[in-house]
């Protein structure tokens, strides 16, 4: 046995996933697996919520327990599922896509990951000791009044914030300094552009939330009075601080997803991306504009009436760069040779559902209509169309797309299609009735509702159970394919970005020899059959 194969063997040892490992690919898998585990927990909480709301009346949870469940459902799905799972893809793929051997700061990268299980443990622990029960928004004074779990929860979210910030520093530095020869900014894959936009947003916005949570924790533990009304503190201050991060957080959760869609559509349409520069710049535009819209969450707060109008206008304008992306994606598939792999189906599903999220977002940016539907199930429907129909669909699209690269195995396409069908039907059935129940008078975060809303809520709950089923199909598919799936070649989709120019899975230093970029990432159809000949590396055994 040669020394090389011994090294290979060590390299493939599963135990390394449980250690402080600085290989970005190991860290990427750590992120993904951890995030999917939290997705299961957050999803189980969603099933509890929908079961309680299956019919009017208080069935098996009282108001206190219910508030704990919704708070943790929201916090887990946002801070421990969507944000880390997208960071996981970026960790694994970003260095490969720009032809680098690792991230710029490998140890910082490991720290970003390990903060997640620790922060997650705090959030989960809070559940067992009189948990956070104020919604993920933690509005003061309610969050000052809440039991001790609220402090533990705040500590958990602060740690997760640091994880994001460290990750963002790493992505920006890596993208700026470690691109391989020939890769200028206009040759960057759009996923890398989207991570750049996301990371810059994180660097500006996340520290503000972290600071705000420290203020809350201090009010709670040391008796400071930042938010205490009787002492001249201001509850509206928290809303400003919170939304200054938490609205951009929506873009932090959707921009990388849009990046994934922009990778997947050209590959399975066999066509160049339509309007590369427009898509790249619209990511940056969303990132910058995203910092100027936060007070649209506060239109009913009694904030200065005149200030609402400028916030309405900036919020509306975000629809423009978003529209550019949607139309460019349509332009990409138009006239292509579409192949409906599960990855492609989830990308197309993303467009059709995110569109509804985007349009209802414009509705809510309008101040008078927001005075109506703010804090109702209309907003719950809207945010799930964006975060589930958008972000989560993009996660599954990326998962099916990159699974062969990460594991060296193919996923089962038939099960993938079944999962897509169930998830698409389930998601629409869950979230569409929410618009109506909100408009008809159902506030958000209620454990009980008026009897007239029973049939709409029944539909939503049935949809949620279908969604739950689709997730079981997915986990079955992922687990069996990882263990026993057929071996994947280095470039099964005949894609042109650099992560496909190395073996599946890639060797420890990513490339035998660093690639030199001579053409753009999406040059399909330039000369007939060009993309067929460019798949240079066939897998040479593993």
């Amino acid at each position: 046995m040669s020394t090389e194969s011994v090294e290979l063997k060590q390299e493939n040892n599963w135990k390394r996933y449980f250690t402080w490992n600085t290989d970005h690919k190991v860290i990427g898998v750590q992120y993904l697996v951890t995030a999917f585990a939290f997705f299961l927990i957050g999803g189980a909480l969603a099933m509890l919520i929908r079961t309680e709301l299956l019919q009017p009346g208080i069935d098996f949870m009282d108001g206190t327990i219910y508030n704990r469940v919704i708070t943790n459902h929201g916090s887990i799905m946002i801070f421990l599922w969507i944000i880390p799972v997208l960071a996981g893809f970026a960790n694994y793929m970003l260095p490969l896509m720009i032809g680098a051997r690792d991230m710029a700061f490998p140890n910082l990268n490991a720290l970003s990951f390990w903060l997640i299980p620790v922060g997650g443990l705090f959030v989960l622990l809070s559940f067992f000791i009189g948990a956070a029960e104020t919604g993920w928004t933690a509005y003061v004074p309610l969050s000052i009044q809440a039991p001790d779990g609220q402090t533990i929860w705040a500590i958990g979210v602060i740690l997760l914030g640091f994880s994001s910030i460290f990750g963002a520093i790493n992505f920006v530095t890596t993208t700026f300094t470690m691109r391989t020869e020939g890769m200028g900014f206009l040759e960057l894959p759009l996923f890398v552009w989207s991570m750049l936009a996301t990371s810059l947003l994180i660097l500006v916005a996340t520290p503000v939330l972290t600071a705000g949570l420290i203020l809350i924790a201090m009010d709670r533990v040391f008796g400071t009075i930042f938010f205490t009304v009787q002492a001249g503190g201001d509850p509206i201050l928290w809303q400003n601080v919170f939304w200054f991060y938490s609205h951009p957080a929506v873009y932090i959760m959707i921009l990388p997803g849009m990046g994934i869609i922009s990778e997947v559509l050209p590959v399975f349409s066999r066509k160049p991306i339509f309007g590369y520069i427009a898509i790249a710049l619209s990511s940056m535009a969303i990132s910058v504009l995203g910092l100027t819209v936060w007070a649209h969450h506060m239109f009913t707060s009694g904030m200065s009436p005149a200030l609402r109008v400028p916030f309405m206008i900036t919020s509306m304008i975000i629809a423009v760069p978003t529209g550019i992306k949607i139309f460019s994606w349509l332009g990409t598939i138009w006239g292509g040779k579409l192949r409906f792999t599960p990855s492609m189906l989830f990308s197309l599903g993303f467009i059709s559902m995110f569109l509804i999220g985007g349009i209802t977002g414009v509705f809510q940016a309008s101040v008078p209509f927001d005075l109506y539907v703010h804090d109702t199930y209309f907003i719950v429907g809207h945010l799930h169309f964006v975060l589930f129909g958008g972000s989560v669909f993009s996660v599954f699209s990326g998962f099916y797309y990159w699974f062969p690269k990460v594991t060296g195995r193919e996923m089962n396409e038939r099960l993938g299609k079944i999962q897509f069908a169930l998830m698409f039907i389930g998601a629409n059935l869950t979230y569409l009735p929410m618009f109506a129940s909100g408009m008809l008078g159902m506030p958000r975060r209620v454990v009980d509702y008026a009897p007239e809303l029973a049939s709409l809520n029944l539909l939503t709950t049935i949809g949620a159970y279908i969604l739950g089923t689709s997730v079981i199909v997915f986990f079955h598919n992922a687990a069996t394919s990882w263990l026993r799936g057929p071996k994947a070649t280095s470039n099964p989709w005949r894609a042109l970005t650099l992560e496909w120019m190395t073996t599946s899975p890639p060797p420890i230093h990513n490339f035998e020899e660093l690639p030199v970029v001579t053409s753009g990432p999406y040059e399909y159809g330039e000369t007939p059959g060009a993309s067929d000949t460019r798949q240079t590396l066939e897998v040479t055994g593993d």
Partner: protein
Amino acid sequence: MKPRNIILLLILAVILITIGVLVATTIDVSAILPIQASESAIYIDQLFRTMLGIAVVIFLIVEGGLIYAVFRFRRKRGETGDGAPIHGNTLLEVIWTLIPAIIVIVISIYSYQILTEIERPGVKPLVIEVIGKQFAWEFRYPDEEVTTTSLHLPIDREINLQITSEDVIHSFWVPEFRIKRDATPGQISELILRPTEAGTYRILCAELCGPGHAAMVTEVVIESKEEFDDWIEKQSNLAELPSSSPEGRRALFITQACGSCHTLDDANAVGIVGPSLNEIGAIAETRVPGLDAQNYITQSILQPNAYIVEGYTSNLMPNNYGERLTAEELQALVEYLLEQK
């Protein structure tokens, strides 16, 4: 572009715009809207229908294009070639940047006009103070010095609600008025409205305020000026009734806002935070072994957490009634509840 395609596109555009206009003006969308009980509701519904019309057109364009592409550009079996190497089209990209920009600017201007209409200060409005507290609403009519747990409004009169909170943030919402406003401690937020449709509607709390959030429901009654004047006069007389009379004991139940959280038909109370008090005089002695009816009711008022009726939550009822009530008032209240059989 071929003339035939231009004609097809024009026909498609006409059809789409027709659908949009129909949605905005004629098609019945009342199934997803509560009735309109105030002027603001009429304005906001107009805005909603306009936006819905535009949204339906955009929705049909994108989803239609998506579905068309999925069927039209499906890869044939065995085909391995690529699509045409088209990297973009400047004219198209300018169009799909400008048109959405124009649409959102138009919606913004229209929204601003509607906002100005619904928040135009009225002439000589009826001012009412609204106080949110965990988990009930309280209404004060300052001119008449009346405090109640349900809101009565005269129809077709300008109303100015001065909304605040005693503890955490709540949000005052009547779906039939459409508009809502947060009740924030330490600040007074104004809500202007003009009721247009007589009836009884629900007032909900729209901002998570704790375990009793979902049950923080009371009613708003919109009635004619005469009915309203009668009601307010009756309310101001309540406080002066002696607690030795049955009417006086009922008045005590009402002025202490027990009905915010408890249902009691005798006092027209519809609260749902705590257990119903209908027939409490008969049930009381069965609740806790060793406590007779009188002692059980007294304990439930003074130490509400001592015994919690199944299906209800502890720590929701204020535990300071011992300080708020005089001994005489407490006795009268217990007596009143014992009479409920």
